[in-house]
């Protein structure tokens, strides 16, 4: 057997200098950690922004200490101006969607574990991979720079709807330089993600070790691969859209501004463009983007659950096919964000049907997870708790999708807190739970140390209960007519809703503070945690057959040989109850099958 596993991996020398090793590293593991670190920094900025927003919504007149330091005009005396509220909201959404939910699940975990799980020593194009991170990092700096230009960041939301986003300074503070920085940042970001995508797809197809057939790939690899296929074309559409938006600002074009537009009593010099065009281009990217955030989490959650249930899912293939179906349909539904945009009403029907259809693969996946959990002896640990939490959030948030998918109902619900509740549960919290599950699960592999389980469980319960306390009431608010993207709810029909807003704000502050437990756990365990064994969760995929933390080259100059499907648990006659993918032992019978 040794002649087989000695399968040539070319001899690579690990870099020695600090810079080549940790900064401009071409090692996929370092790049994965860099992406994760970027997401971590971004998520804390985004979270603080959400705190500020929530405090302002609950107590619009309250001074928030220190805010005047961030912007003298935006928060005179620490009280947010209406415009500055929207500016912070824009940055919150932008940072969270692009720099957290896109970078962590796909680029962070994917970079670290995809090459290991397919049995390769690295990505096929390590330099492109390094470039991908640094381009993305550059995009992040440009986005953050918007805080520090005179008028501050843009106020047009993460969707940057035209004409607001295309008019320049007349449209409000931050709509000049701030909006240009936003569009440039996103265009750069798109380039960075494209580079990553090339690696993900070719690594999955080409770098698999001997014996690793496609159906032997763990579900995580499938999820990353399918996500990469989605992002290949999604970002390629957003990038030119952002360039056109920049041209509207700097070159006097009017791609997205219609004729005869009067703003603040001034006739705008623009002529001939279309605001709907921006929405089409943006959502052509935007809807696939939400699946770019969630599909990797689906993979991670499946992986974590299977390992802790000690048995495979009811159907491995159905999960894969469902993810493929989601990827396919995700391109056909984008118009459901535009039901009330003034879009052709016939298009609404054409977009509504595939939107309802996309709930089918989602439902199939949920049923498979729940059906597999039924009667299993799930090992309860922080990772599996977060995986369960993911399913809960995905279902609660997804159910409202059925309502929103129908134009007749969406006319009422669009641009209310109902939509905000929908996407925070189904995308934001669910994807974050996937990230948490992945973090608690793989931390021992990455650092060689265990995380503290007690702190982890405390963190889970605070986050789980907290997320529901924050986002469930959003739905009621929305149905009561509470509009979205307002900075204060003083109109008489919304004033009675203020107690709900105060409750949400308090819940948000507590839940946010609970994230410090996670941060503490992460840092403390990194240096002082219990030493981790090679395979703490008794997993079967290839990452568990190498030391923790993995050596440079992953498999120490050799490539593994794979003999089994990914999830061989509950095996009769195995030393424990499982057989690793690269174990040459043959499998006689599965206990459950008797």
């Amino acid at each position, binding site marked *: *057997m040794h002649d*087989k596993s000695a399968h040539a991996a070319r001899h690579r020398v690990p870099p020695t200098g600090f810079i080549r090793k940790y900064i401009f590293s071409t090692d996929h593991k370092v790049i994965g950690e860099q992406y994760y670190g970027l997401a971590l920094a971004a998520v804390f900025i985004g979270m603080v922004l959400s705190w500020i927003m929530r405090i302002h919504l609950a107590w619009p007149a309250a001074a928030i200490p220190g805010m005047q330091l961030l912007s003298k005009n935006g928060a005179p005396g620490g009280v947010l101006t209406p415009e500055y509220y929207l500016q912070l909201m824009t940055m919150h959404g932008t940072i969270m969607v692009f720099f957290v939910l896109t970078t962590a699940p796909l680029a962070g975990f994917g970079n670290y574990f995809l090459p290991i799980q397919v049995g390769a020593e690295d990505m*096929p*194009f390590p330099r492109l991979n390094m470039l991908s991170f640094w381009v993305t990092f550059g995009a992040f700096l440009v986005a953050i720079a918007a805080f520090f230009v005179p008028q501050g960041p843009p106020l047009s939301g993460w969707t940057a709807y035209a004409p607001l986003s295309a008019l320049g300074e007349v449209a409000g503070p931050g709509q000049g330089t701030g909006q240009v920085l936003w569009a440039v940042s996103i265009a750069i970001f798109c380039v960075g993600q*494209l580079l990553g*995508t*090339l*690696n993900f*797809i*070719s690594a999955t*197809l*080409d*770098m*698999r*070790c*001997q*014996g*690793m*057939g*496609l159906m032997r790939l763990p579900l995580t690899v499938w999820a990353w691969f399918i996500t990469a296929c989605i992002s*290949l*074309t999604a*970002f*390629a*559409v957003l*990038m*030119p*859209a952002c*360039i*056109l938006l920049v*041209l509207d600002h700097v*070159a*006097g*074009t*009017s*791609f997205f501004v219609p004729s005869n537009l009067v703003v603040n009593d001034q006739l705008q010099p623009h*002529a*001939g*463009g*279309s605001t709907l*065009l921006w929405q*089409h*281009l943006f959502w*052509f990217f935007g809807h696939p983007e939400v699946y770019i955030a969630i599909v990797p989490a689906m993979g991670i959650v499946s992986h974590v659950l299977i390992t802790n249930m000690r048995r495979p899912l009811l159907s491995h293939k159905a999960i894969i096919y469902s993810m493929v179906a989601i990827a396919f349909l995700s391109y056909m539904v984008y118009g459901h964000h535009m039901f009330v945009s003034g879009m052709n009403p016939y298009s609404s029907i054409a977009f509504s049907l595939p939107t309802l259809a996309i709930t089918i693969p989602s439902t199939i996946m949920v049923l498979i997870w729940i059906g597999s959990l039924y009667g299993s002896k799930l090992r309860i640990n922080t990772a599996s708790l977060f995986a369960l939490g993911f399913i809960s959030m995905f279902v609660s948030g997804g159910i409202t999708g059925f309502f929103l998918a129908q134009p007749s109902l969406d006319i009422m619900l669009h641009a209310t807190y109902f939509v905000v509740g929908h996407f925070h549960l189904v995308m934001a919290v669910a994807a974050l739970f996937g990230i948490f599950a992945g973090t608690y699960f793989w931390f021992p592999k990455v650092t060689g140390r265990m995380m503290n389980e007690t702190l982890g469980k405390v963190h889970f319960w605070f986050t789980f209960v907290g997320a529901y306390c924050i986002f469930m009431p959003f739905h009621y608010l929305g149905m009561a007519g509470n509009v979205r993207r307002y900075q204060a709810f003083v109109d008489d029909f919304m004033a009675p809703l203020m107690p709900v807003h105060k409750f949400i704000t308090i819940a948000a502050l507590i839940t946010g503070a609970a994230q410090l437990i996670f941060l503490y756990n992460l840092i403390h365990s990194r240096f002082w945690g219990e030493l981790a064994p090679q395979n703490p969760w008794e997993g079967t995929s290839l990452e568990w057959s190498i030391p923790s933390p993995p050596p440079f080259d992953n498999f120490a100059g050799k490539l593994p*040989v*794979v*003999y089994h499907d990914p999830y061989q648990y509950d095996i*009769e*006659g*195995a*030393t424990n109850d499982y057989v690793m993918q690269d174990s*040459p*032992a*043959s499998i*006689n019978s599965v206990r459950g099958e008797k």
Partner: protein
Amino acid sequence: MSQSDLTMGTHLSVPERSSPFAMPSKKLAMWLFLIADAATFATCLVAYGFLRNGSLNWPTPFKFFPTVVNTMVMTFILVTSSLTMALGVRAAKMGDQDAAYRWTMLTAAGGSIFVLLHVHEWMDLIDEGVRLSRNPWGNALFGASFFTITGLHLIHVMAGIVVLIVVGLRCRGGRCDAGDVEITGLYWHFVNLVWMFVVPLVYLLNVSK
């Protein structure tokens, strides 16, 4: 249960390593990039078509001479450069490094003539007062979409020329990498393919009859 229940690797299937697409990773990555690039160009062309379709006073200023004649020449040159490129790839793949060098350089030369003609055309239009933000004939979006789309394409051609020269020179030194010539070829053909759509949409729909 004991170890003895497990037999060692006798009837285990270990399929040979294979790639479902049966091509080198570099070539796959180039194809992937081209899919993305196709989406990028399509976005620009759809945006242009959307705006043109929705406008009431879209100008049709292009005269047979010089614009349409110039476009014919440019098209001829690009298509011809695709032929030389294909022959270059063929030579490289068959190990004829000198021929590969000659064909790639010829291709780069064709591309350069295209760039010169294109820039010359741009200069003429700019002289006539066409800008991104305005033009003498009416709807301001005419200049905006013309320069954006042809500009994006022009950048692609120029990048292609640089790559062709780098890859081609390596062939002269006898260090030809046929795989590199091949993926450069893929890129070059793709850029020319885009031109096949730019010509009718951006030029020919806007001729004055």
